[in-house]
């Protein structure tokens, strides 16, 4: 875990309300694992003052570059979108427990929705480097899905997409159906990141087909390091209900253990 002022190398809008931020943070680039996150101070003033957690989108270990793909959803991310090349960025990371990509031998399936793409790209790259066959299902707004497809294809990932309103039942049914079909073809392990709705639906499918499924989940976060105990989610562990910290025990959990309250 490192805390420092890093230099912003670029911060550009790539699709819809999606931005790609690149900053120099060699310590983070060197140690980060797919699924981990950075905790960023978007504002030096008193409102809003909490850091915002972002999945690490990609790193370049040689040059020390770290990339974050984020969606503007509130004041914090809107202020982040205003930051320009050359400005300083207060970053804490890498934090949290990432994906268990080592558990994959031959093939993996990724399912992402909207900005959920942000935590899967690093994983896809890692898996492809190890010769794993990767396929992906991407859903969300047209521009977002389109750019995700382009990036994934460049890594040699087979991509299927669903464009639409993520809140609509039709969209959700289509995503779950594609997921069921892809799992049916047989994969070692699946990985997901997206809305609670999508993750709950797909978790159910994976459990039925008995395929290990890891999901990156979200909760409002304060400290990001496991000290304040604010970011809990309900988890079933060995049959017992408990609360686990998204920042420290997660953000990646076995989908089967998460108690979905949607």
């Amino acid at each position, binding site marked *: 875990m490192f*805390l420092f002022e890093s230099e912003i190398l670029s911060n550009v809008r790539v699709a819809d309300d999606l931005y790609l931020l690149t900053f120099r943070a060699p310590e983070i680039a060197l140690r980060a694992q797919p699924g981990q996150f950075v905790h960023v101070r978007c504002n030096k003033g008193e409102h809003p*003052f909490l850091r915002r957690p972002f999945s690490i989108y990609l790193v370049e270990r040689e040059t020390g570059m770290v990339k974050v793909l984020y969606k503007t959803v509130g004041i914090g991310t809107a202020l982040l979108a205003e930051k320009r090349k050359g400005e300083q960025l207060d970053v*804490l990371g890498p934090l949290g427990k990432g994906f268990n990509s080592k558990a994959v031998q031959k093939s993996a399936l990724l399912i992402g929705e909207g900005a959920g793409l942000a935590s899967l790209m690093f994983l896809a790259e890692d898996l492809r480097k190890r010769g794993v066959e990767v396929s992906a299902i991407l859903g969300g707004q047209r521009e977002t899905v389109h750019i995700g497809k382009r990036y994934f294809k460049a890594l040699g990932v087979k991509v299927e997409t669903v464009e639409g309103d993520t809140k609509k039942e039709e969209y959700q049914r289509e995503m779950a159906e594609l997921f069921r079909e892809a799992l049916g073809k047989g994969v070692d392990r699946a990985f997901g990141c997206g809305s609670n709705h999508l993750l709950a639906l797909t978790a159910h499918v994976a459990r039925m087909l008995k395929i290990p499924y890891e999901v990156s989940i979200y909760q409002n976060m*304060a*400290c990001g*390091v496991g000290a*304040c*105990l*604010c970011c*809990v989610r309900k988890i079933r562990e060995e049959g017992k209900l408990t609360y686990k910290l998204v920042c420290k025990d997660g953000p990646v959990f076995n989908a089967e253990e998460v108690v979905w309250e949607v």
Partner: protein
Amino acid sequence: MPVLSVKIGRMTLKNPVMPASGTFGYGEEYSKLIDLNKLGAIVTKCVRLKPTLGNPPPRLAETPCGLIASVGLQSIGVEAFIKEKMPFLRRFNTRIIANIGGETVEEYVEIAERLNGVKGLDGLEVNVSCPNIKRGGIAFGVDPETVYKVVSQVRKAAKNLTLIVKLTPNVTNIVEIAEACEQAGAEALTLINSPLGMAVDIEKRKPKLSTVLGGLCGPAIKPIGLRCVWQVAQRVRIPIIGVGGIFTATDALEYIIAGATAVQVGTANFVKPRVMLEIIEGIEKYLEEHEINNINKLIGSLQV
């Protein structure tokens, strides 16, 4: 170099800066980012008698210049605290204060008895002010007679430890609660725990916290904290530890001038993990610039 050392009960602190309970865990996480030896003291997450799960999510919502939180005194329990956390904490050259909470007077007493004499532990901060648990907590801190009962019993149960009581601002008259604590044998007071607040999600028409109400923290509450410290400082002789919205050395100095002997830093740790060290340096610089050779000369120096 000005003297920064202050006394809280029987404890001498190398400087007046420490974390607020519940914002710093047991120091382990932040020890990777700051040197804990430099702190005046470490105040632990609330220790309860038995392991406690705490409140369901969501526990946090950001509000203007603050946040509301409702963790609900999630605790690993007193035995795990002694066995798993104290060996780490006692390695540091600083004072260790355990914050304790319970649902009954007997529970407070039992925890205090168990902690009395634990190697490396210097003080107890009795939490009679948690706004986020259904039974106990704040219920003890809003009535002078009840608070007197808890504090005097804990006093008897933990004779070897400096006894601090942390009070809630959610009362009509905080001075009478503070006076009851002093009479019951408290050696210091921590002011304030978080005032109750609320936030609403207008799309879902639901409260943003699972418990509806939560404790308001951050810069938004500094004026309330200062008010409480100043009011109580006029009426009690025991030292006061000021807490509420301290983000900078200036904030800490405001509390000290208003009557606080020491200060606790809470929410600011989440944003700036090295903030307590900055505050210590800032206080020292202020004293030098104002040619004050000892911080004790500054405490309660407010000219009204």
